[in-house]
């Protein structure tokens, strides 16, 4: 059952983050458009905002339900973990998130369904900004929980070794400390930058496709305008993702050395390590793959000043994560470099004032790399989460100690998987359908004939 619980939750959250990244990037994009609309009001842009708003409402609606599925699944699949969460200050992050969620929901409702009710010139921009702020704050707060799982604080178990047992009691030492662990800041900035980047690239992929397919000049102008802004956000995003990713590795090296050793495939501790791309450990030695001499040691020294790097042999093998996270980590880094190279070329187009949308190969690459960026984003999360195994709370509680062993979860669990397989593609189908079907000026009041007024 533990494997099933793990798989079900991984599948659910893997599906959920598609909607999350879409929602966050979309509302940021809408806010950017509202800002430009404020500076220079333009009917085509206003209409585009309305179309994007509708897509956002769908993304938000399905994402909300999916978020509740994730929250309740945590209780249902890992009740032991959630009991510890509820007895320590980190529950505060979940609780605060609800109010961020309310902020997002009510601002969105006012923004979408009460357009024109407030006469103030800055209303739309302000409401879009508040909605975006609520959305980002939700992401920040849930990342705090993840950071606490990686570097727990603010409590201990009253056992001899400080680890969980079925009779262990939680002793709280500081209720507010879990909201700011040693890894909280580095994880938040990395998660936010990569989430915005992945979501924006995915949206860019769609608009690049539409631009390629479209024969209508008005549409092409609109798509070009969207693609320019998306490209700008993506270029900033990849730079931030690189910087924050490097910072995240430094945090790992300092506070989760075993995870670092597994990700960099260091069999033993030592100095002067090469950067290893792929390969496996056989008889205590790294076999296969490519090695770049001294690079790992150089990066570690530059980022943290640490010279002596950790190795797997310093830890009991039972606490090692699956070593294939080294491969997923390498895929993530190489993928990031490929994306970075593409965006650098895109940046050169801007520098030399060339319209990159007129360059077909660049557009085709954008379509492919938008999807690829999302794959890399998911791959990054897999690396992070599998890298913490077997722990659910690092060095304190294992996933098997937290899991629900009820076999009655199996059938509804499979149903949830089947359901997501239908819901996610349907949602994307509706995104496209709703975006394409609403070209004229509209308002979102229910019409007497059905649906909303078009």
């Amino acid at each position, binding site marked *: 059952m533990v494997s099933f619980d793990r798989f079900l939750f991984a599948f659910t959250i893997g599906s959920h983050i598609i909607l999350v990244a879409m929602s966050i990037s979309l509302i940021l994009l809408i806010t950017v458009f509202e800002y430009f609309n404020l500076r220079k009001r333009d009917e085509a842009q206003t209409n585009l905002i309305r179309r994007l708003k509708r897509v956002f409402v769908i993304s*938000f*609606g*399905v994402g*909300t*339900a999916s978020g*509740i*599925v994730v929250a*309740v*699944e945590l*209780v*249902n699949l890992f*009740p*032991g973990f*959630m*009991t510890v*969460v*509820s*007895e320590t*200050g980190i*529950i*505060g992050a*979940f*609780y*605060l*998130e*609800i*109010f961020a*969620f*309310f*902020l997002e*929901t*009510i*601002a*969105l*409702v*006012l923004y979408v*369904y*009460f357009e024109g*009710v*407030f006469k103030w010139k800055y209303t739309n921009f302000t409401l879009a900004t508040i909605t975006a702020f609520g959305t980002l704050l939700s992401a920040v707060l849930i990342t705090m929980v993840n950071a606490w799982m990686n570097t727990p604080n603010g409590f201990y178990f009253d056992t001899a070794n400080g680890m969980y047992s079925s009779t262990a009691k939680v002793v*709280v030492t500081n*209720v*507010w400390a879990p909201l700011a662990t040693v890894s909280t800041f580095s994880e938040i900035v990395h998660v936010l930058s990569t989430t915005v980047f992945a979501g924006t690239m995915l949206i860019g992929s769609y608009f690049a496709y539409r631009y390629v397919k479209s024969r209508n000049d008005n549409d092409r102008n609109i798509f070009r305008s969207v693609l320019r802004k998306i490209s700008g956000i993506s270029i900033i995003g990849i730079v931030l993702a690189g910087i924050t990713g490097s910072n995240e590795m430094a945090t790992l090296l300092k506070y989760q050395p075993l995870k670092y050793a597994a990700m960099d495939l260091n069999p033993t501790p030592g100095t002067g390590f090469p950067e290893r791309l792929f390969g496996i450990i056989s008889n205590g030695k790294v076999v296969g793959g490519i090695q770049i001499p001294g690079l790992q040691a150089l990066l570690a020294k530059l980022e943290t000043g640490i010279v002596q790097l950790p190795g797997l042999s310093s830890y009991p093998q039972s606490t090692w994560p699956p070593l294939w996270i080294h491969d997923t980590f390498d895929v993530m880094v190489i993928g990031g470099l490929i994306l970075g190279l593409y965006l650098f070329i895109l940046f050169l187009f801007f520098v030399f004032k060339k319209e990159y949308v007129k360059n077909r190969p660049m557009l085709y690459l954008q379509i492919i790399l938008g999807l690829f960026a999302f794959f890399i984003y998911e791959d990054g999360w897999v690396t992070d989460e599998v890298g913490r195994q077997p722990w659910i709370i690092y060095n304190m509680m294992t996933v098997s100690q937290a899991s*629900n062993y*009820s076999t*009655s*979860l199996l*059938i*509804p669990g499979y149903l*949830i998987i089947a*359901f997501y397989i239908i819901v996610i593609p*349907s949602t994307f189908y*509706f995104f496209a*359908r709703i975006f394409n079907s*609403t070209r004229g000026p509209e308002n979102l009041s*229910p019409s007497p004939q*059905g*649906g*909303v007024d*078009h």
Partner: protein
Amino acid sequence: MLIINYIFYIDFAIFSVFVTLFITEIMGGVMILIGWDRYRKGILDYIVPVWEVTGTFAAFWVVASDFAFPKILIPVADIFPWMIMLFLILFVARNSTIVFAEFIIKKGWLDERKLYSGYAFSTLLIAIVVLIILSGIIGGTGINLSTLSFSAGSWALNAGGWLFLIGAVIIALGLAPVFYNVIDLKKITLPFTALGIVISTLSFYILSPGTFSAMVIIPVIMTILIPVLYLIQPLRMIVVNKLFFIGWGSIDIFSMNFMVYPDAFGGKLPVDAFTTSGPMTGMFYAISLAGIIILGILVIFYAFAVKRKSIETIEHPV
């Protein structure tokens, strides 16, 4: 010395608002199914902007309960695992269908009516799942606390559970014409509500005779007053006001807290023993207070927007 468990009451207040909002959606769902062409405008004008808020309140209650009663999580997860999973599937179905329905342009077989009907069905099914779980929490029906398991068979053999379900559905049917101000159904509102109250009260007694008390008179009076006020024409405008109805309904449900406090599951589980304690209580109060202030401000803005929009609609009718 009597110690008041404020944490329980805060959690129950959140639950009361969530249930009231959810009941308004159930009533809308019923109306959608029975009279789409006739009632759709009035129902959608209310439901379309509010369903997201209901969902947020559901999450609010779930997280507040996690915080307030940490030790109840393992028993609840063990007792109701498949019911909770079923709830989740229906919840995603509810959100997906309504959000697709909002913006659908008819193409092929799928249209707005089918999607809203899907929303109504999933909402009604969620209601059934929630009512079964609630009947278990109130009376322990179908629940074996020693093995931490739930038996649908033994739940089905207890008349209390069925009456609880039927009573709630009949009350919803009785109050729906009031909430959506459907004058042509005004004749059914009082008899349906009264019948639902009788059945529900009987179900409470069967479910948990030990915790049943004279306090039940408060929710009974509060509930029956709604159709009575509706039938008195000069007072009708008060009860058809949606904010008033939601406020009244929340207080009405809050008054039923005696059914699970101080003991839940048919008097077998003392709530105080499961409530969070120590330094965690300070955090609970601090965040609750700050959050409720923020929520209050947002609700004021929302109410203001609703009022402005209704004035505009009167001044500039479509």
